[in-house]
């Protein structure tokens, strides 16, 4: 069964400055939805509104058509990867896996660079490994949807390719909403891409659409 997460009629102002006006976005299980936009266009704000950690003047967040308030209190519905590291640095890798009830062997098999690292503290990992671990727990922990804010940051090209492959496999289990500045990688993995511009979302299909909307210059 396909589940649908919709964010509709979202309006956000900071003082007199309107950031988002009448935004619509749809995310489905089994698909990866990409969200592009220049700095300051409100991508992270939009994610925080969907999550319920940022209040907006108007919004309707629906899961399967039912309005869902405070979705952040329901990790079985939506998990969130913020753009910064969120795992407490004093924790060991094994503790993190235990907390999220994920078997370490699966993780090791998927990302062999973590072999014999289960007793290491998270802050002893490299930036890329730390990010990989965070993406893994968000993608693997059972939930209907996951929002990833700049997942490719701190990752080297090989790690990015591995994560892209991993996300393509994991989308069978949930719906992803991903935003990142590395648009080529995002376009590679996404089934649907929205461009956030002038406070509105524009559904894009090709790289030419991004050019036409002024996000990139071909």
């Amino acid at each position, binding site marked *: 069964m396909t589940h649908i997460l919709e964010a509709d009629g979202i309006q956000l102002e900071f003082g007199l400055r309107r950031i988002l006006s009448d935004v619509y976005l749809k995310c489905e299980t089994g698909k990866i939805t990409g969200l592009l936009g220049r700095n300051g266009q409100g991508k992270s704000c939009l994610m925080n509104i969907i999550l319920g950690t940022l209040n907006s003047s108007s919004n309707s967040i629906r899961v399967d058509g039912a309005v869902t308030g405070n979705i*952040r*209190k*329901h*990790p*079985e519905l939506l*998990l*969130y990867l*913020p753009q*910064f*590291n*969120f*795992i*407490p640095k*004093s924790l060991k890798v094994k503790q993190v896996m235990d*907390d*999220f*009830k994920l078997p370490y062997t699966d993780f090791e098999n998927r990302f062999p660079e973590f072999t014999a690292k289960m007793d290491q503290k998270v802050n002893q990992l490299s930036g890329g490994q730390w990010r990989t671990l965070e993406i893994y*727990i*968000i993608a693997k*922990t059972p939930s209907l949807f996951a929002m990833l804010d700049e997942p490719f940051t701190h990752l080297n090209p090989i790690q990015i390719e591995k994560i892209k492959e991993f996300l393509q496999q994991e989308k069978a289990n949930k719906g992803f909403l991903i935003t990142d500045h590395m648009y080529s990688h995002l376009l590679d993995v996404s089934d649907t891409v929205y461009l956030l511009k002038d406070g509105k979302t524009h559904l894009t299909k090709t790289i030419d659409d991004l050019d036409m909307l002024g996000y990139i210059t071909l």
Partner: protein
Amino acid sequence: MRTLKLITRFYSGIFLVNFLITLSCVYSMIHFGTDALEIVGVLFWFKVCLLAVVFYFSITNNKQELYYYQNLGISKLFLAGTTSAFDFMLWLAFVYFQLRIGIPVYIFNLLLLSVLLIFLYLYYKK
């Protein structure tokens, strides 16, 4: 069980400062001796205000890590409620037993020393 483990982990980060505040209340009561009951009201508000201040700073300093707990289904308010309630109960127990029994000061000195040694050990182990 997992929730309890996560709350305990969060509380361990703010335990020491809260414990020192609780002990400062008890030391004040010992100092006032038989008149201790008269300052309980002041100590109550002292404890409540500092509980709020400590929690505010722990939230501000660990803002990013709160997403970890959130992804595990534990909200900021739940963390605040449970840890504050437990810490306040601890304060209440100390104050009650001090008023009822009058625990000698050396017991609190020993307790303080033990807690500080444990934290020093954990700090160097980290």
